[in-house]
């Protein structure tokens, strides 16, 4: 069975590093939010019942990171079962909605807690339940799976498989070999040309733009993707559209400049990770590097992105990242941050990207209401500073631009969002 100590994996340590990097931001940590929208306000009694449903999870949600006394491997120590903080807000006007979401995003999580919930209500119009998760304990897919459990009243924690059952300290050869593979790749990228990066101020707030496509618009987008990129190639298609828009936003300084895009992918079902793993960070990265000179023409950028996805998947790069990242767990986050800063731009990337093609909560009711839309709002760490995240829900696609304020003038972000929306809707 599972060890009483749920050990942290390498990507949990990366989340811990990003959490440290975000310590001076208004949110005080590396968080992300899941927004569940409904056409009408969630019934108060159903909302009030949610904290009770969370009761079995409270020790874990109030936990913290500790190190083993002998071998120093980090693990998650459950804490006191303090109740989850639940807040509500009534909005007067629909235009207040995005501002209210941003306000909640920039509020720190209660000390030592990995989850907070906020309900936004409008008497006539869009209402939402917003779940704010700490990345120390959850990733996006795991957060959806937790809500699925809440939705269905399932609290069998023996099936949650929290963390690693062992500290994984006995496979040094594999970890170092994977570390060399990653290092070689980063060196190759450095040789290709200078990577375009922009870092935000350490104290900058989180900000978002959400582009929600209708079912018809999503269907049309899929048809264009099938035509231009091939069947099932929506990921490279969306990345090409995003990179093309971002290319227009960034000034060019050299001919051989490139975009380095750390594409995050869910690893459930691989590397012995259960498909239903709720807790901890079960994701990895596929780093894609694209010359800016290819980005203006999707006929050039799409095949290049597609080719790189195939090569990196074939090389098992994502698995190599997970194995190599285990070596980092010995270093405390302040030291790791110094190393990352010293290693330079190839370790952070131009912008983060991900596409979650399915959801665990499709066609479900939550707290007595039909969910009309669901999207993820990850907070970007100051280094990288911007990410574009796509998810599909009930045959509709959402695009979220997450960035740190001050990274660009707001008019530039408006322009980028408008151009991306036009491209997604096939209007450019």
């Amino acid at each position, binding site marked *: 069975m599972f060890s009483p100590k749920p050990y942290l994996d390498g990507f949990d340590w990366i989340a811990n590093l990003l959490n440290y990097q975000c310590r001076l931001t208004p949110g005080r940590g590396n968080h992300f939010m899941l927004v569940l929208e409904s056409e009408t306000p969630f019934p108060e009694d159903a909302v009030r019942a949610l904290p009770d449903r969370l009761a079995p999870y409270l020790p874990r949600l109030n936990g913290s990171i500790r190190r083993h006394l002998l071998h120093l491997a980090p693990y998650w120590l459950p804490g006191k079962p303090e109740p989850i903080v639940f807040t509500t807000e009534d909005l007067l006007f629909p235009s207040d909605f995005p501002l209210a979401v941003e306000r909640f995003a920039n509020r720190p999580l209660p000390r030592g807690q990995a989850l907070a919930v906020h309900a936004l209500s409008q008497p006539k119009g869009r209402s939402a339940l917003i779940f704010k998760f700490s990345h120390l304990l959850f990733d996006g897919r795991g957060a959806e799976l937790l809500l699925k459990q809440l939705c269905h009243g399932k609290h069998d924690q023996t099936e949650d498989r929290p963390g690693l059952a062992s500290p994984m300290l006995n496979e040094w050869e594999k970890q170092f070999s994977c570390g060399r593979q990653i290092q070689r790749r980063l060196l190759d990228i450095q040789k290709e040309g200078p990577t375009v990066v922009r870092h935000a101020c350490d104290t900058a707030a989180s900000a978002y733009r959400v582009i929600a496509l209708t079912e018809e618009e999503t269907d049309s987008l899929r048809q264009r993707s*099938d035509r231009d990129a*091939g*069947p*099932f*190639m*929506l*990921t490279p298609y969306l990345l090409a559209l995003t990179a093309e828009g971002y290319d227009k936003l960034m000034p060019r300084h050299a001919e051989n400049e490139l975009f380095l895009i750390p594409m995050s*992918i869910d690893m459930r*079902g691989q590397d012995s990770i259960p*498909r239903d793993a709720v807790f901890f960070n079960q994701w990895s990265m596929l780093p894609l590097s694209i010359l800016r000179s290819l980005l203006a023409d999707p006929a050039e950028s799409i095949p290049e992105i*597609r080719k790189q*996805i*195939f090569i990196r*998947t*074939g090389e098992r790069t994502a698995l190599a990242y997970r194995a190599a990242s285990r070596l980092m767990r010995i270093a405390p986050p302040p030291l790791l941050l110094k190393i990352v800063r010293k290693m330079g731009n190839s370790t952070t990337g131009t912008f983060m990207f991900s*596409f979650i*093609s*399915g959801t665990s909560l499709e066609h479900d009711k939550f707290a007595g209401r039909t969910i009309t839309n669901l999207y993820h709002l990850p907070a970007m760490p100051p280094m990288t500073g911007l990410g574009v995240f796509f998810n599909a829900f009930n045959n509709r696609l959402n695009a979220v631009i997450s960035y740190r304020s001050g990274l660009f003038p707001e008019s530039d972000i408006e322009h980028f969002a408008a151009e991306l929306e036009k491209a997604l809707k096939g209007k450019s």
Partner: protein
Amino acid sequence: MTKITQEEIETALKHEISIITGKKPEELKTDQSLTWNGINSMGFVELLLSVSRLWNVNLLDAGIGTADVSTLSALAERIGKELAR
């Protein structure tokens, strides 16, 4: 060289999809779409890599279209055609 049959290709595809999606081979249906059988965007990349490894066929370079992936059976048929070239 023995010619590989459509049924053999379908069986091999089911095995690969089973590994990728975690579904049991008997849960997979040849007359259903790849999406129905649990394949998503990244799963399809894995599947095409498996096809390349098993039969040395690069379907993306061969220019597959939506009709070729409409069902698992259609995909097997397309692989068969590429092998016959």
